[in-house]
């Protein structure tokens, strides 16, 4: 059984994944993100290269946040993402995850973020319609991905408490997430949720969603769901060994954890910093 599944089942204490995405992998290869993001073969190649270079415990197919929002234009890249996921699933033994947007965040891209935020308080009908459209789209996209047997991370950054109130989260973001997670779990695949920024007031709700993994910035509050995180994004970027060690040691006090960065590793992060994070984690990793 792979390490991520072992930690989810509490048969192992830790696994590791600095959230390395296509932008950083492309940079390792001197390729442009724009080139990688629209070509499934290149995307798979770059992500496989990153995985083999760093040897972490999972791979995340994520190029940029706009994949689903561009499907109605000539920039539709969902088929390329599916292609990349399929290639990686066949080639790698570690779990392959595909990142999709939460319907709440996708709806904000459809309306325009600022208008969406104002509509949350003044035009409920438009918000509900946009979320409904986004959910229907994501269900179709998700079905295609699940057929490949890949796992799913749902990123919903607009649902963060750094942006909206817990009340708005409950009214608009919760249920669409619940529907998607149920679909993933019905196929016995791994469901993760990633929300950056502040999440503490909504953690009880996130916990009830039934996901396998919660990727959040502050991992100190207790949850039933397995947490993923522990290293601040700027710590990995700066490569400060002392701070990195301090954060990793603290994170490893969690009984079970996927040690990860709080958000995706900045594209221009020195590869040595990522290697250092993995080295330190191995040094202090609980057996």
């Amino acid at each position, binding site marked *: 059984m792979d390490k991520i599944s072992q930690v989810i089942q509490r048969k192992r204490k830790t696994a590791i994944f600095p959230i390395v995405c296509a932008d950083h992998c492309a940079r390792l290869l001197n390729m442009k993100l724009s080139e990688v993001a629209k070509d499934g073969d290149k995307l798979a190649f770059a992500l496989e290269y990153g995985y083999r270079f760093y040897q972490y415990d999972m791979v995340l197919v994520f190029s940029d946040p706009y994949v689903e929002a561009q499907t109605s234009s000539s920039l539709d890249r969902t088929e390329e993402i599916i292609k990349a996921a399929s290639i990686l699933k066949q080639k790698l033994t570690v779990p392959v995850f595909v990142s999709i947007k939460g319907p709440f965040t996708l709806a904000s891209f459809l309306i325009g973020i600022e208008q969406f935020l*104002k509509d949350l308080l003044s035009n409920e009908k438009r918000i509900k319609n946009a979320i409904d459209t986004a959910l229907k789209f994501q269900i179709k996209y998700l079905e295609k991905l699940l057929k490949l047997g890949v796992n799913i991370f749902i990123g919903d950054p607009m649902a963060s408490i750094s*942006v909206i*109130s817990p009340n708005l989260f409950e009214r608009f973001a919760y249920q669409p997430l619940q529907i998607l997670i149920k679909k993933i779990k019905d196929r016995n695949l791994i469901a993760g949720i990633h929300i950056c920024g502040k999440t503490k007031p909504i953690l009880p709700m996130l916990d009830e969603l039934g996901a396998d993994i919660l990727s959040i910035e502050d991992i100190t509050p207790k949850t039933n769901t397995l947490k993923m995180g522990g290293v601040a994004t700027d710590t990995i970027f700066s490569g400060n060994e002392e701070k990195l060690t301090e954060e990793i040691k603290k994170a490893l006090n969690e009984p079970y954890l996927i040690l990860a960065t709080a958000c995706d590793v900045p594209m221009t992060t020195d590869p040595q910093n990522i290697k250092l994070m993995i080295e330190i984690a191995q040094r202090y990793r609980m057996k």
Partner: protein
Amino acid sequence: MAFDKIKQAVVLMERERVKDLVKKSLEKGESPKAVLEQGLIAGMKEVSKLFSTQEYFVPEVLMASEAFYAGFDLVSPLIKKDEVKEKGKIVIGVVEGDIHDIGKNIVKVMLEASGYQVIDLGKDVPIEKFVETVREVKPAILALSALMTTTMVKMGEVIETLRQKQLRDRIKIIIGGAPVNKHFAQKIGADACGEDATAAIKLCEELIG
């Protein structure tokens, strides 16, 4: 009392009510400066407090900002320049490659409500544009914003370019946005990092008064 009503209408995000109350106050002969300071700005200060205590979130601040500007647009043409003690010029913008400007817009409205003259360069601003504006406008503070880990690195490039052009030491530079913090600010040579809009205003006050 009229000012209190304006303040409350801003806090309650009532755009049309703010407009009506400001018009009525001006018709009654209230000074535009007092309407601005004791009504509109007082309202935004309260909004800022509610934001920092997590009673208000971004949607509420955006709606309150709209209400603020509904009144501000009516009173600002009536205020003589010498009536207002100008606190200093601040150039603000979202760095190149990043189109997320809500945070920047919130900081802008809070800065204006606090009496600063804000020159807003918008979003996806090329490095040269920042440099050019700093040279021409000679602001006290340059405020850089970025939401993404892919674009936050541009902040360092702006600062480095200003250094090369011998413009860095003339100004204070603050940064803000979800992925950045004070350690990152130190690393790239910024003077400070504001965790949110309220903190950004506090920083400006500390840096230039």
